[in-house]
């Protein structure tokens, strides 16, 4: 609001023109000390005096202060303000001096009273607490206090850094411990899996070994089976049977107690099968108490099942209920005489 109310004019700033060679027109504001117009940059007042004049100031503190003010870059040299500035400094110096002398006077008085009677040192400060405080401040080892404060500051910073670092490490530690826990779990799982795999491999390996062993056995069985003799038989023709029986010499054997019909039948049967002719051993059952009889049979391809009496190589047509000797084929010029025992056929058993 203040800025808005401030009066200004549009013109060339004399300071800009002299110092910066800038003759452009801009907003110029009125200085409240010298009442001249300047741009915003050069509006502030500064000391209007020569360097040699400053050098003449004897008080080094005041000289440094004036130098500091004189070195300001912006603003404009203002005689009115310079005058006021020095007046203000003068007043301040006088006040300081007065305060100093007052303090000195009081110290003198205190030391005199102290000499007269022993007064506790604490009372010394009581009449002029504010003033004495300032004196103490002057005598106090200011540097040590500053160093202490700096040390406390540094220590606090270090402490803060250390605590922060500890906190960070704590966080990292908990993260790593968590990670370690997860890794341990993963490792346990993997170990478990490894054990399962070991078990599976061992089991399958054992199965494989057993299978290979079995395979070896089957192979050897196959070898045996392949080398095994096969007894190839065939059903003969009637003519083939007749031819075989003619060649076979079993009928030349003599019946005895030790070479009965069963022996005849066995020999013809085994001889025929050795020749590849499928032959049956036939048992004829006679009535109870009468020993049975053995003959042979062939399943001929042309005349079907035919029976033969191996003792005579004669064909037989056994019928249940009929006497066996009546079943024998007739030979021209011969006839069969029945035995004394009952040779009626009761049953027929064929053993292929």
């Amino acid at each position: 609001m203040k800025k808005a109310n401030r009066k200004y004019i549009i013109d060339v700033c004399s300071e800009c023109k002299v110092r910066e060679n800038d003759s452009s027109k801009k907003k110029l504001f009125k200085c409240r000390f010298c009442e001249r117009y300047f741009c915003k940059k050069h509006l502030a007042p500064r000391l209007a005096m020569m360097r040699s004049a400053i050098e003449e100031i004897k008080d080094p503190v005041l000289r440094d202060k004036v130098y500091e003010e004189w070195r300001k870059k912006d603003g404009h040299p203002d005689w009115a303000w310079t005058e006021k500035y020095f007046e203000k400094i003068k007043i301040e110096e006088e006040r300081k001096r007065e305060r100093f002398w007052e303090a000195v006077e009081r110290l003198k008085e205190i030391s005199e009273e102290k000499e007269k009677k022993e007064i506790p040192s604490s009372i010394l400060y009581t009449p002029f607490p504010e003033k004495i405080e300032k004196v103490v401040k002057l005598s106090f080892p200011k540097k040590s206090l500053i160093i202490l404060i700096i040390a406390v500051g540094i220590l606090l910073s270090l402490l803060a850094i250390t605590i922060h670092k500890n906190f960070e490490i704590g966080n990292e530690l908990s993260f790593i411990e968590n990670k370690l826990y997860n890794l341990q779990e993963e490792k346990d799982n993997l170990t478990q899996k490894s054990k399962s795999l070991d078990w599976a491999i061992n089991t399958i390996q054992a199965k494989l070994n057993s299978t290979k062993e079995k395979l070896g056995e089957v192979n050897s069985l196959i070898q045996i089976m392949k080398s095994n003799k096969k007894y190839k038989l065939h059903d003969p023709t009637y003519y083939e049977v007749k031819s075989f029986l003619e060649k076979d010499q079993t009928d030349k054997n003599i019946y005895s107690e030790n070479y009965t019909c069963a022996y005849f039948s066995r020999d013809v049967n085994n001889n025929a099968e050795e020749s590849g002719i499928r032959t049956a051993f036939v048992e004829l059952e006679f009535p109870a108490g009468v020993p049975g009889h053995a003959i042979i049979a062939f399943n001929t391809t042309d005349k079907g099942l035919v029976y033969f009496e191996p003792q005579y190589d004669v064909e037989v047509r056994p019928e249940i209920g009929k006497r066996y000797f009546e079943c024998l084929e007739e030979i021209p010029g011969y006839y069969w005489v029945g035995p004394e025992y009952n040779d009626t056929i009761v049953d027929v058993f064929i053993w292929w």
Partner: protein
Amino acid sequence: MSESFKIILIILAMLVIFLLFEIQHLLQSQKFLQLKKENVANMLREIEELKKELNIKEMTLTNVSEELNKTNLYLNLKEIELEKLKVGNRYELQNLFYEDVKSFMEESIQECDSSNCIVNRAKENGIRCGYVQVYTTREKYYPLIRFDTLDRGTIYFNSLSSDPVELSSFEPIKNILVIW
């Protein structure tokens, strides 16, 4: 020395102690952290090795499984071949192994009640066997069935049991007739 100066000194001393304590804690934590990091690194290495080992094992398992499958397949083929070799008919008889004869007898005693039936059944199935008459007197004989097995030689059965019988149990034997 003023009170404030003393207080500041005490604070300073406390701060130093606290700082030292914190620094010691920090150093210990750092050592512990380092140890943990080493543990993690070791663990990672172990896990890596375990994974490699697992890969190898899985490959081995796959290979062994494949080999087992192939062997099983081959065994099946061979068993089929063996079974085919064992198969015969009434016109092609052959001797078999003891186990085959035994299982044939086990089946046969369920179906047959006489040695005649068993012999004819065996021959129908291409199994070479003989009808045997063991004579203990001139006329009395015991009917048996004889098989010449490929692995255990000659064995005899009666029509009642699937267990082989010993010929010696029929002593005194007068004669034996084997009709093939």
